[in-house]
Structure formats: structure tokens, C-alpha cells
């Protein structure tokens, strides 16, 4: 299958839910722009950068710096949620310092957006985003989808339920990492889509059949080792493991239209309405940066015309739910609920 066909396949199978069909395939907007088409960045910018992706965001920033010697880029780094809270606190104290916020999860962007600090994304950047990803006040940079990695030596794909809510009723053993941030976003999505009571029941039902891991790469490795039949993890852990161990018994499955196939994204927002801040965002959405994040971090590019990372299954059949990603910011009720259910 050609790459473009795969993209179409993913889209046709409804990978996007609220992220419309076709969004991962060819779209009606222009393809990603090359960095060569962008103006040189000149002046001073302060970026608040949530840590993530094992330093690959830093590589992008370094590349932008090198290419724009007249740009003075000040960076404040920290855990994404902490930076979001700092931004809100600074604004309340009329001491705003940041021009931009680049966050590893959209929930933190939601916190800042709700505080009314974000400036609208300009059309020159927005029009290149995949349809359905064109938000008003933030630009998704790269995405990751929740998946069910499974061990084909232990089960057939038909044994995997299409609904995440049905998983406790199967006889499958499941690996999960409840302490992991992405897992908690997934449970938050479930809470929002299914309600607290159903989510609590699901967590309690799962407990009996789960094996706990500290992180989601551990989950995926546990699946490939045959410790469990199936796992709950972001897609890129499987792609990375397969890149290191091409023969590992590991495949990806997706649930349909529920939290089990949540598509979450990192993103950037302008906090000052300046050409410089908006042009910085355009650099992050270039063909070059998007391709880099797809090939090096296995993230899903958010701009039209950029190939998906190698290794996504040819027969991918995901159908993410309709959910406003920035609503995932409110993780506290989720943690309370997880504690109630005895999984944290």
C-alpha cells in the first residue's frame, strides 16, 4: 500500500471522529509550506515550553534559532501543566512575560485558553492545518492516538472489542500504566464521554484483568513479551518498539468512536498578537518540522500533505471520539475517581 493510500485508508476508516474524514488524507487546503517560503524571524520572543518528546522539540527550536540569527529566543521550560498555571498567574498579576506557549498536551492549552490569554491563530497558519484541526486560538503541532497494542501470537484481532467499554467483559489480560499522564487524559475523555459512574465501573472491572506497568513503553514491551494479551498505550510506543525489533509479535488495534481511540495533540498558541509570534508558529507547521516530528518522534503530523510516521498499520481502523481536546485539562476529578476505584 502506498503511503497516500494509507492516509486515505486511515481517514476513510474514520480515524478522526470530530477530526473529520479526509483530514489525514489529501485535503482541500494547500500543502505544507517549506521553511524557505517563510520570512526571517527578527526580534525577541519568550517561549514557555512544556517538556516532552525526549528533546526533539529542543532540536526544532535549535534549528529555528540557527536559521534566524537575528531572533533572540528566551525559553522557560517546565512541566506543561505547571507552565500553564504560571501563565495564568502571571496574567492575573499583570506580569505576563510569554509571547508563546508550546505544550505537550492540549489540556494545558485549554487552561490558558479559558483564561482568555490566547490570541487567534492567523489564517496564514490555520489554513495549512488539516481540516478539523483548525482551532480558533491554538495550532496543533503533532498528534498521538490511543491504541490497543496486542500480541498476535496470543489472540486474533476479532477477539478485540470495538468498544473500550466492553474490555472488562472480555477474558483478555491487559497491560496499563495508570500513573502515566496520557492514560489519565484517556480516562478523562472517558469520564467526559461516558460519565463518572460508568468510568468508575470500567476502572473497577478492569482491575481484575490488568497488569500494571510504570510507563506505556513498558506496557507495549509487556505485550510483545506475552505477559499480557493486549495493552493500552499511545501509538508511538509500538512504532518505536517495532523499529528496534521488527519481528516483535506486536500489532495495533483501535476501538471505535470512544475514549479508547482518543486523538490528542501537542500544540502552540500566541499570547501576544505580534507578527513575530505568529510567524514562529508558522515555522512549527512547516513541511520540514512536521516531517521531522513524524520521522523522529513517530508523531502524527497536523499539517496537510505531510506523511504519517512509518509503521502505522496498513489496515488501521480507528475512529476517535468527538471531544474538545482542551476539556481534557481538568484531570483532578479523574485522579479522584481513579483513587476511588483503587487503581492509583
Amino acid at each position: 500500500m502506498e503511503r497516500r493510500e494509507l492516509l486515505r485508508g486511515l481517514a476513510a476508516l474514520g480515524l478522526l471522529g470530530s477530526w473529520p474524514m479526509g483530514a489525514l488524507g489529501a485535503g482541500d487546503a494547500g500543502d505544507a509550506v517549506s521553511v524557505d517560503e517563510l520570512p526571517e524571524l527578527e526580534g525577541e520572543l519568550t517561549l514557555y515550553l512544556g517538556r516532552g518528546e525526549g528533546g526533539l522539540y529542543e532540536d526544532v527550536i535549535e534549528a529555528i534559532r540557527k536559521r534566524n540569527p537575528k531572533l533572540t529566543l528566551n525559553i522557560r521550560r517546565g512541566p506543561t501543566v505547571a507552565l500553564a498555571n504560571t501563565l495564568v498567574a502571571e496574567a492575573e498579576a499583570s506580569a505576563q512575560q510569554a509571547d508563546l506557549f508550546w505544550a505537550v498536551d492540549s489540556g494545558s492549552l485549554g487552561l490558558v485558553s479559558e483564561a482568555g490569554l490566547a490570541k487567534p491563530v492567523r489564517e496564514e497558519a490555520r489554513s495549512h492545518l488539516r481540516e478539523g484541526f483548525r482551532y480558533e486560538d491554538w495550532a496543533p503541532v503533532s498528534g498521538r492516538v490511543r491504541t490497543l497494542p496486542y500480541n498476535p501470537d496470543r489472540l486474533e484481532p476479532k477477539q478485540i472489542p470495538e468498544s473500550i467499554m466492553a474490555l472488562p467483559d472480555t477474558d483478555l489480560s491487559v497491560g496499563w500504566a495508570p500513573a502515566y499522564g496520557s492514560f489519565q487524559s484517556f480516562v478523562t475523555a472517558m469520564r467526559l464521554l461516558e460519565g463518572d459512574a460508568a468510568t468508575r465501573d470500567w476502572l473497577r472491572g478492569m482491575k481484575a484483568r490488568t497488569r500494571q506497568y510504570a510507563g506505556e513503553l513498558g506496557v507495549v514491551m509487556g505485550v510483545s513479551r506475552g505477559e499480557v494479551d493486549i495493552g493500552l498505550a499511545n501509538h508511538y510506543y509500538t512504532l518505536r518498539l517495532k523499529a528496534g525489533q521488527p519481528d516483535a509479535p506486536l500489532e495495533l488495534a483501535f476501538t471505535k468512536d470512544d475514549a479508547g481511540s482518543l486523538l490528542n495533540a501537542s500544540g502552540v498558541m500566541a499570547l501576544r498578537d505580534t507578527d513575530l509570534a505568529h510567524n514562529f508558529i508558522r515555522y512549527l507547521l512547516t513541511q520540514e518540522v512536521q516531517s521531522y516530528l513524524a520521522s523522529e518522534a513517530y508523531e502524527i503530523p497536523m499539517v496537510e500533505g505531510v506523511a504519517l510516521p512509518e509503521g502505522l498499520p496498513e489496515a488501521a481502523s480507528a475512529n476517535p471520539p468527538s471531544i474538545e481536546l482542551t476539556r481534557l485539562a481538568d484531570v483532578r476529578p479523574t485522579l479522584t475517581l481513579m483513587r476511588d476505584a483503587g487503581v492509583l
Partner: protein
Amino acid sequence: MTTRIPAPLTSMALVLLFAAMPVTALASGEIGDHVEDLKAHLGEYDSEVKDFNAKVDGLVDSYAEKGGESVNTAKLIEWWEDVKFHAAVEVNYVPVYASIWQGIYGVKEAIDEGKAAAEVRKQQRALEQAMWKGMGAVMLAAKNQADGGTSEGDDSGKVSGSDAVDRILTNLDEVTIEYAENESEEATEIIHNTYLNLFEGIEGALIEQDAELVEDLEKDFNVGLPKLIENGASVSEVTDYVKAMKKKLKRAQKLLEKGEQDKKDVF
């Protein structure tokens, strides 16, 4: 002044700050104002090191002459915890601080297990070396402190995979320290935080180069080392396990450095 850092901070966050921070707190117990003016106290530390070594020497002499019943090895820990130098080295150079604890337990366990005097002497020499190494670290820190050296803080720049491994190595030293101090819960917490906050950040890149090594280290972080602690293994067993992990991590560091070189350019 005495301060004790809340448990969550005694783990990774504290270790990360050790290197250049003008320290006002101590991971394992009390702190004195003296650490804020190391230079003025170098003479005192020097006397304490000599005195401590002399006491250990006397204890080992007794053991060699009269046997295990003539000595109380718990005194080794008491003497170490009593000296101000303890705080000075702990806040300035965690790896040596770990070596000192390992040396103390090396002597203690050799005596408690009734080993030959020659073996106890061997452990004593290692302990003395660690003490003097610690003194060297404190002298260097005193000079930096007097010169006005400060931390760049956590916002100073990119943490490469290789840097992350350095931090993991330091944290593993801290695990052995906490365990030697009977702080099993804190030792386990450091392991967990180190895995989540540091190892997880590098394993993605590492797994493509050596998946078996990652798998091995995953087991070390999530099963091997926590289980040893949970089962109350001896300090030397934990230390040996950490040593083996560090060897694997050094290999990982080389792979990450090579990976950095091979990484494609963004533009």
C-alpha cells in the same frame, strides 16, 4: 538551623539541584548554617575526617585483636551522622556521599558477618578513600561558593539523552544512600520518579538501537531494584545491583550519544 526536606523532594528534585545550588537543606536529616560558608569551616571538616577515620581505625583494631563481641558497629553510623562534614559532602557531591555510606556499611557488614580482619581492613581503606575524596569535593565546592558560583537553574537549556543518563546515575547513588539510611520508602520513590521522569524520556530513542538493553533496564527499574528493597536485601546487595545498572546505563549513554550524531537535521 535544622531543616528536613519533605519526602517528595528528597528524591529526584533534590538530586538534580545538588550540583551547583547554594544549599540550605539536607536530604537525610539535619543541616547547619555552616554549609552556607564552607570555606570558613574547612579546618573543622578536616579535623572531623581525621577524627572519624581514627575512630574507625580503633574499632577495626579492637575487632582484629578481640573479635566481634568487643565492638559495636552501630557506632560507625552514629559517628558519621554526628559530624558536620556529613552535611557538607552530602549537599555538594552525592556520588562520594554514596561511596562513604557504602564504605561504612562495607566495614559494618564485614564485622557483623565475622569476616577476616584483612577483609575488614580492605573495607576500611575504601571508606577512608571515600572520606578524603569527599573532603576534596567539599574544598572545591568551598572555592566555587567563595567565587560566587550559582546554579543556572532548570531553565538553562536542553537536556540531552546523555545528560539524562548522568542524572539517572546520580539518582541511583541517592537510592543507595536512602537505603543505607533505612529510608526504603524514599529509595523506592526515587527509583519510580527516576523511571518516570528521566528514563522514560530516553527509552524511546534507545529502544530503536538496543531494545534488549531497554527491556533489561525496564526490569531493573520496575522489578529488580524495587524488589530487592522491598525484600530487605543487604546494603551491599543493593549497591551491587545499582552498580550493574550503572554499567548498562553507561552503555545506553554511548548509544544515545551515537544516536544524537546520526539524527537527521530539521531543516
